[in-house]
């Protein structure tokens, strides 16, 4: 199930072409540009008896890593085009369209051993049993 819910993000970004996409942490000293995608799922608690308990929120935290702020913004635009508005097809789930719910501007990152610029965009879709 978790893999099915992560696949729409990874597939769409890889299909965009020209984007180097990592599904998880990058090896040390990887040269930009590239994208790092961390997929998570969450099941918010229901509030009333009428609420559906198995509503799943699928979130992708996408690091857009470039050599400059401008490069990060270009990657951000490419990720937006690839993801926003897409309605994922997940077996046995009825999915909302993907939307961007958060964004952090580019900032310096040295965690890979190289000094790069890292922008974070967060995307999400919600699904119910189909």
């Amino acid at each position, binding site marked *: 199930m978790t893999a099915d819910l992560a696949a729409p993000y990874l597939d769409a970004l890889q299909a965009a072409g020209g984007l180097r996409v990592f599904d*998880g*942490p*990058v*090896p*040390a000293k*990887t040269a930009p540009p*590239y994208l*790092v995608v*961390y997929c*998570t799922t*969450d099941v*918010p*608690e229901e*509030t*009333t008896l009428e*609420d559906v308990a198995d509503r799943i*929120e699928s*979130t992708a*935290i996408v*690091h857009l*890593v470039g050599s400059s702020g401008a490069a990060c913004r270009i990657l951000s635009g490419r990720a937006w085009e690839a993801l926003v508005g897409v309605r994922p097809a997940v077996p046995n789930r009825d999915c909302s369209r993907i939307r961007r719910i*958060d964004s*952090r501007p580019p900032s310096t*990152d040295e*965690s*890979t051993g190289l000094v*790069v610029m*890292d922008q*974070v965009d*967060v995307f999400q879709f919600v699904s119910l049993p189909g």
Partner: protein
Amino acid sequence: MATTIPVTIDVEQLEDFARDLDNAETLVRAEVRKVVAKGALNIKTDAKKRIGRGPYLPGYANSIGYDTRERTTEISAEIGPDKDKNQGPLGNILDYGTPNRAPIPHLGPALAAEDPRLEKAIGDAVIKALGL
């Protein structure tokens, strides 16, 4: 000459309702203030639970707190790590990760989990304040 028919209208209940509406702003504000504070506390508690404590994060959870703020037309709460406290500056790195370290989402999911409860509680608070 037309016959006049005396009509008497009892507006006592209408006056009571008008008085209730006059008082509503104060009552609603008091109720919403309580709901926002409770919601902020729930989010803080949930975020702490999600991040937990480990050998590398002995102090971070305790850096998460909240402040409430009240303006003329707004009651709000700010929830998150206090950067002046032990490991408080790690908040962004933990919530979003880095290119070579996976995130531990805790603030965003805690807010999302509370969102529907908060919305319902505010609705209930307004109904209670208006005596409906």
